[in-house]
Structures are given as C-alpha cells and as structure tokens.
C-alpha cells in the first residue's frame, strides 16, 4: 500500500486516504473537436511501464486533487505537485531524469 504526500495539505498518508484518478495533464476537447481528438482525449491512455504522471485526490483528507509522478514498476514516487498546472515542475523532471535517464511521458522528458 502506497504512501503519498498531499502537496495541498502537506499530510503524508497511506493510500486509503486517497483516490486514484488516472492519467494527468489531459487536454479537454469539446464540441467542435474532431473525432480523432475527442477519441484521444476521452479514451486513449498511456499505461506506461515506468514513469507515469497521474492524478490523485485526497478524498479522505483535504479533498484536493493533485498530481503524482510515479514509477508504475517499482512504485517509487518521484514527487507530487499541484493539479493546477499544465506540466510537471522542473525539479521533479530533473529528479526523474537523474533516476530514469532518457525517460519520456507524453510531451515531457
């Protein structure tokens, strides 16, 4: 069972306080979008073996959503960060680069 640090309230707690919310940094496509864009937004997910950027909610806590950078294979958590952003913070990217050279995820590396 994972432990995660909620960047909103600062609490480090076990997984039962949190709710996993799938892939982070999805860009919404609305009514005017093409079928392909909407399909990618709605249904296509990365499901990587390794570095993943994902959403979590501290639902049995402060109630806030946040993002986590986590390795799906070793379960190492590289860091958690605000959900109100379009990209992972540089220090987290740098840490991942140090530990997983050559990583990439979506548009980030």
């Amino acid at each position, binding site marked *: *069972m*994972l*432990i995660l640090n909620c960047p909103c309230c600062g609490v480090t707690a*076990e997984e039962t306080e949190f709710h996993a*919310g799938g892939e982070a940094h999805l860009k*919404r*496509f*609305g*009514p005017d*979008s093409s*079928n392909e864009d*909407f399909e990618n937004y*709605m249904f296509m997910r990365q499901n990587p073996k390794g570095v993943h950027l994902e*959403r979590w*909610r501290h*639902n049995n806590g402060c*109630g*806030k*959503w946040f993002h986590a950078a986590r*390795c799906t294979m*070793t*379960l*190492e*958590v590289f860091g958690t960060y605000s*959900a*109100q952003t379009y990209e992972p913070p540089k220090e987290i990217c740098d840490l991942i680069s140090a*530990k997983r050279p050559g990583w990439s995820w979506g548009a980030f590396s």
Partner: protein
Amino acid sequence: MSTRLATGGRLLNKSKALSFSFNGTTLKGFEGDTLASALLANDRVLMGRSFKYHRPRGVVASGSEEPNGLVQMGEGGKFEPNQRVTTTELFEGLKAKSQNHWPSLEYDVGALNAKLSRFMPAGFYYKMFIHPRSFWKHVYEPIIRHAAGLGAAPKATDRDADTYEHFYAFCDVLVIGGGVAGLQAAKAAAASGAKVIVAEQTAHLGGRAVVDGGTIDGQTAEDFVTAITAELEAMDNVTIRTRMMGAGVYDHGYVLGYERLKDHAPEMAGPRHRLWRIRAAQTITATGAIERPLSFAGNDIPGVMLASAIRDYVVNYGVSSGDRTVVVTNNDDAYRTAIALKHAGLDVPAIIDARPAGDDSDLIARAKALGIRVMMGHGIATVQGGKRVTGVEICAQAGEGAVLEEIACDAVAMSGGWSPVVHLWSHCGGKLTWDESQASFRPDPNRPPLGDKGQGFVSVAGAANGETTLAAILADATDCGKEAAKAAGFKAKATKAPVAEDAVERALLPVWLMPQGAGYKLRSKAWLDYQNDVKVSDVQLAAQEGFTSVEHAKRYTTLGMATDQGKLSNINGLAILSDSLNQPIPQTGTTTFRPPYTPISMGSIGGEARGDVFQPIRRTPMYDWHEANGADWEPVGQWRRPYAYVQSGETVHDAVMRETKNTRENLGLLDASTLGKIIVKGPDAGKFLDMLYTNMMSTLKVGKCRYGLMCSENGFLIDDGVVARIDDETFLCHTTTGGAETIHGHMEEWLQTEWWDWNVYVANVTEQYAQVAVVGPKARKALEALGGMDLSADAFGFMEWQDGSLGGFDVRAYRISFSGELSYEIAVPASQGQAFWDALMAVGADLGVMPYGTECLHILRAEKGFIMIGDETDGTVIPQDLGLNWAISKKKTDFLGKRAQQREHMVSDQRWKLVGLETIDKSTLPDGAYAVGEGTNANGQRVMIGRVTSSYHSPNLERGIAMGLVLHGPDRMGEVITFPGTDGKDYEAKIVSPVFYDPEGEKPNV
C-alpha cells in the same frame, strides 16, 4: 515412547499443571507447554492424517513451519480448524481434535488412498476427472467436494464468539524476530534514538540460541537474552511485542503484525487478535532459519522429526520424542541433538551421517566422546513402522539402498541443513542469491525491496541472512541495526557486537535424496511435502511430463501449496526438480513467497468491521421514528430508507399499495432527507452549472426551481435533480440519494482540475437539512394547518421555493413534485427534523396522513413516466434515449457530454428509446425482461429489441405499468411486443406513452 522427562523444560512452570483434551480424552500438561509438547509428553505421537493419502502423521517440527500437527480447536463460536499444535500454547480446558479421518484417527477408511497411491500420481485429479464430461457436475464434483478441504469449516450458524481489532503503528525501525539477532539489531538501532518495534511470533524471546548453546560476552545465551531484553525494555523508544508475527511486508514500508492476544488464555477480556498495520521507515527481518528434512523412504512416519525439534522438546519442554533416537544428518548441527538427548539420559543408538569420513569437528568429537556410534557415509534406506517408528534400515549413502543393518529405534532425528527464512524479505520484491556452502537461498543485499523514494527498506540480520555461527550472527545483527537506523535518518551510535563463541563446524554436504541412487520404490515413499502428500517421485514425474517451470511444477504437484506454504518442502522440492531437469538449483529458481507468513485469522483481517459496524449505516434524523413505525428498510447506498411502513396484518406489498393509493387520494409524507443538496456559489456559478447540466441554469430566476440533467463527459446520464436559485450568485443543486457525494466530487474535480480559474465554491450541505416531501391533494391544507407562510397558488407557484415559517419552524419550502401530485418539499435544520415530522403527522391526522416509503415513491413517479437514475439509466443511456431532449439546451455551445453525444452511435436511430408498456392482461411485467424480435443474431440467439427498465403494479390504475427501452419505440405506439420471462411464460405488452397518470399534468398545478 515419547514421554515427559523428570528434569529439564526451561519454558515450563511445573508447579502449574493444566488439563486438556485430545479426541475426547483428558490429558495433563504444564503451563508453558505447547499443545505439541503436551501431546508428546502423553505419548500421543499420532496426531493426524495427511490430506491426500490419509497417512498417519505425527509432529515433525516445533514451530510455525509444522506441516502435520494440525487440529481443530474449540467448539461452537470458538471452533477453528487447522490450528498448528506447535504454535498453540496450552491452556486449562483446551479441547482439540484431529482431522482428516473417518471414523477415527486410529482406523481411517480414507487410508485406502495410500494403498492406491501408485495410481494417484501427480496431476491425478486433472487426468482422472476429465471424461466423460457429463460426470463433472453430478459424479466427480460431489466426490471431490466430499474428499476435499483440510479440516472442517465452522458451521455457518456459529458466529465467531471473539472480537478482533486493527492498530495503526508507526516506527523508524521494525525488527521482525526476537531471537538473539533481532534483539541485538534492535539494540544497535535503538541506540541512535530511533523508535523501534520488535515483533516475536512466539511467547518467548531468544530464538534458537538459548537451546543451541554457545557463550555470548562470557555468559550463556540465556543470560545474554535476559540482560539485553531488560536493557531494551528500559528504553522509552523500544516496544517489544511477543506473540506477534510479522505476517507480511508490503509496498512503501507497510508491514502487518499479527498479534495473538488471548489464544493462550481465552478467558481473558478483550479482542482475540490484533492486526497491527505498521508503517516502518526500515524493517529488519531477523527471522532465523528453518531446518530441512531429508528425503528418505518413510520419512513421514510418526516419530521422524527434525533434529532441532527433538532438541527443542527436550530442552524447552522436558519431553523426549522417543527412548531410542537415531540421528540422520548431512551436517554438524544435528550432533547437538544427539548430545542433548544423551545429556537427558536418553539413548542414541547411532548418528547416520551422509558425509564421507573425514576429520572430526568439535561436535563430532563430543558425540563420539559420549559413546555415540557415528556412521559416516551412510544413510537411511527406509524407516520401519506404521503409526510410529519401530526402526531404521541403514544403507550406504552412495548406493541404491541395499540394507546393511537394521537399528531398532522409536524416533528419528533428521537434519538436511538449514534454510534462511527469506519470506518477509521476498514478500515485496527482495531478491535471493544461492549460497553454495549452505545449499540454500539467502537474501541478496544488493537487490532489496524498494520503498517510496526508491530506497531499500528491508534488511536482514543473522541466520535469516545466511549467517550460521553465533559470532557472525551477532556481528551481522549489530551492523544491520546501525545501518537501518541510519537509513531511517538517525545518527548511528557506536555499538559493539558481542563476542560469541560456539563450536567450529565441518561443512555440510548437500543431500537431496537418501540414498543417492534410491530406486522408484524408495522415492515413492520419500516425502517432500507432508501436508499435501507430495513425494520425490511426483516432482520427478512432473518434470518428465514437461512441467519444467518451478511455478508450473508447484501447481501440478501441489508442492508447497498447503497451509504451511512449503516451509519444509520448498528447497528439497526445487533440488529434486533441478536434478530431474539436469540444471543447477539457482537456474530453477524459487516459487514466489507471498504473505502472510503463516495463515492469519479472517477475524483479524476484518478487524472491528462486523456486526453493527460491518459497514456504515447512514441514518436520517427521523430514522428512529421510521424504525418504530414499521419501516421495512431498503439500503440505498449506505443509507437506510423505509421501503414501506408495514402495519400489523399487512404484507410489505399491501403496505406499498396502501401508501400509493393514500398519497394520491389524501396525504403522504416522505423522508427525503437523503437527497443530495449542494451549494454552488460565486460569480461564475451560473457558467459552471451551464457546463454541468445539459440544460441552461444561468437563466434561472432567483426564487425559481428547474429540473436538470447531468451527464458524464462521455455523454451518459449520471444524475438528475431540481436546482433552486437562492440569490444572484448562489444555487442549490439537489442530487439523487446515491449521487450526493459523487456529484459533489464531480463538481470539485472539474473546478480543481479544469476550470481552476473560475470563481466558484461548492459545499455539500446534504445533511444540514431534514427534508420532508408533503404530497397529495391535501398537502396544502396540512401545511396551512401548521400556519406561517402563504401557500396559496398565487403566492407560491409551482417550481418555486421560499424561505418562511411553518408551525414555528424556520423552513425552506420547495414547490416541486416527483409524484405528479400537489407537493411541497420542506427543509428544516436536521436537529429539528423529528419535531417537524411530528408536527406534520399531528396536523395530518385529520387529513388521512400516512408516511410512505421508497417503493411508493417509485410507483408514483412511474405512473407519471418520470425516470429514475439507476432504473432507466445504467451508465449506457443518454438523455436523448429517454425522450428528454427538452432538457438539453440547443443554445449552449458546450456542456459536459455534449461532444460525446455527437458521436456516430449516439445519434444512431438504432438506439433503444423510452416508452411505456402496458400488459394486455393487466399483469405486471418482469423487471429487466427483454423483448424479442424476428430472427436470430450471429450467435444463433433470438434478436432482442428492448428491455423493461421499471415495472410495478399500480393500485391507482389497477394494472401493471412499466417503462422500457425499445428499438424505434416512440414510432411504434400501439404495437404489441413479446417479453419471454425466466418463468417460461411469454408476456405481451403494448407500447404506449410512458405517462400513465394525469397526462395533462393538472394535479400538481392547483
């Protein structure tokens, strides 16, 4: 015979005799005994029967690795099968029974299986019970079910009489194992100031060292343990728990500790087991090692035991396992047993040592000096005896088993070397390396389980780490403790490893089969897995039949799959498999070690969650009133809502019919408190709700209400409810009962993760209010009788809300209707809910008031063709399917679900659409029934053209009414379609409008 010795027994309190019973016979033991030692003390060598062949079996080991000594304990609410006699502490009045036999332990009909063993090889069940297919259900399954299962299951009617609990604990360093390594590691770690927990699965600290001898810092091992325990207990930052097993190691330093609080003293108050949910920065597993059996014919006959176990019984419990014990070994350690037996005055006719003759080590020399005959280069060809050992046949280890000599004896002490207990290291991914010198797997310190920061979080100390001498074990433990404290963020203090001395041993010789060239006859009597009856010949057959992967061979033979999870059999089995495959053991590898280390009680896993608190039951403020007034409860999520209020002499159905008629004719009250109520406030609140709802909410006027639909982003209808505009910036959104938390979460999700720059705050105020629906033609009269606000049609119109006063209560009243009747929903603060309900019942008395439940609510809404989330919707239905296009804004450029609803199959004319369904004979359609059309589909099944989504008997219309989704339904009004029921009948129904009652909608508008 096995018996109690006059002397010895370091764990016994001989001044306190205990009586207990085994298979109905009363026996005596002492405080400090285990059930195993007490049975042996009473010469009860035969303790059970094996699983497959029903072979007579006695105890093999002295600890948690025991495969044979399983009994059922207790009776009624205290009954539990498969309890290990070796880990069961004796208590006054203990009742145990042996398992897997009929009619008795001594005479077991099932033992015939053993005679047939030649015909029941590995994979027997797979091969045998495959043809003919028609036999699966009625012949094979009953036979297998009758024979299957280890022990008996408790009776379903006997509820567990004990209680259990969880406990969340946090520490810097968790030490699993309270032997000398664990204690020393704990001391080294605690010196840094780190918070340390030591968990020891038995009732006693000290582990093997106190039995095996040696000196530590000039003291006996026993004195060392006493001293270091006192030292640790005096430290504020150390907690020592005995009777607590490290059950499993999980991700990110999560460890389960299984504490058995009163298995040894059932009369004590409090919970029986406590499951510790520990989060440790670092975990040290100091779990010791387990001795391996040797594989020779007849190694399962009662009286053949691990050498260390025989030693334990003599030293710890003053119990001899036999008068004459032959020791058979491939290493020096077993000599300790011979020496201990000799010191206890018992006879050791011979030590059979498989190793070739060579220099005598300390222990060999000491045994010889005691006059024990040592036979190097020899092995046991076969053990004689049935229900107990009567002798052994000796052969050359290098040969094929030609008998050189017979030696009479009543016990055999065997030792095939020691395997480190690597289970807890391995649970979360710690890797192993093969240690050639000890012929065992040991932890590879370079590949530990990884924690949340990618750091190793488990380390191993002492014998569990593959160390074999006392000096090396203590040095390793000291280092391990210091390193763990450092890794947990503490500055390690210099802690000196104690100086230890014990015998210098001669190297072990790996022996996987005895004798080396044993033929089939011997191999088919050489047991690997005692509990599951797996023999050397079975593993060889599996290899021969192509099960070359260790995981496949395990499942095919069931090696290591019993309740002991192969603690004794694992390495021996691997070695046989490797030999059969002609490959080195590391190449074969091990099977996966999974938690728990030994079985833990189901009760401990459930913890407090049973009985009243099995799951949360949410109660409205009027819950007790409902309960006292005949409520037949319906679970709605975690809420309990009255399904109907059953009066004396009524069935539930009668009550529903009565309530439904009365609400249409007089006055009904519904506890609607569970409906979700969410405040949405801010300058962007209107814009936000326009995104959430399919219809336009921003144009709603203050004081007005509007029914709205919510869809998920992929278009499907997820919730509905009435929205009230409170002021310019504030809306109150009603959700379904089940939707309050999810819709609140849905709103927060979009606000936090997509539109975080919008100025909107939401708050879930569902439980702030008790809400009562006052429904029926006399609703206004009732409220007017309470007095306060003006409820006339002019002053308070349909789909409006007002704050005001009724009967002295401050209320928020909504004039909305989910029943098609004149209806008001009145909200009061929850703490006034019961008082308000009482007031309504009082003023309604003359108006024919009756409370009504959820089933009546369903019928009323179905009569009106109102949809219900969860009935008409199932996660695949869009509002357009339900004819709700009027509630979907065409003006809005965007709302959640809009884009998805443009997808090809969402606009397809093949989607089933909502219609009403009227049976021709006025009967009630089966809920969920499917309508069939012409022809068959690609699978040869009848084509389906629709299904029933809601179906009720309407007492007001005196007929069955239903709603359903039907292909081209709205275009087929008047057509009759057929619904085959699961009862074999065909139901015919006419497609009609879903609005059965008051189609003009006049009733609520009065």
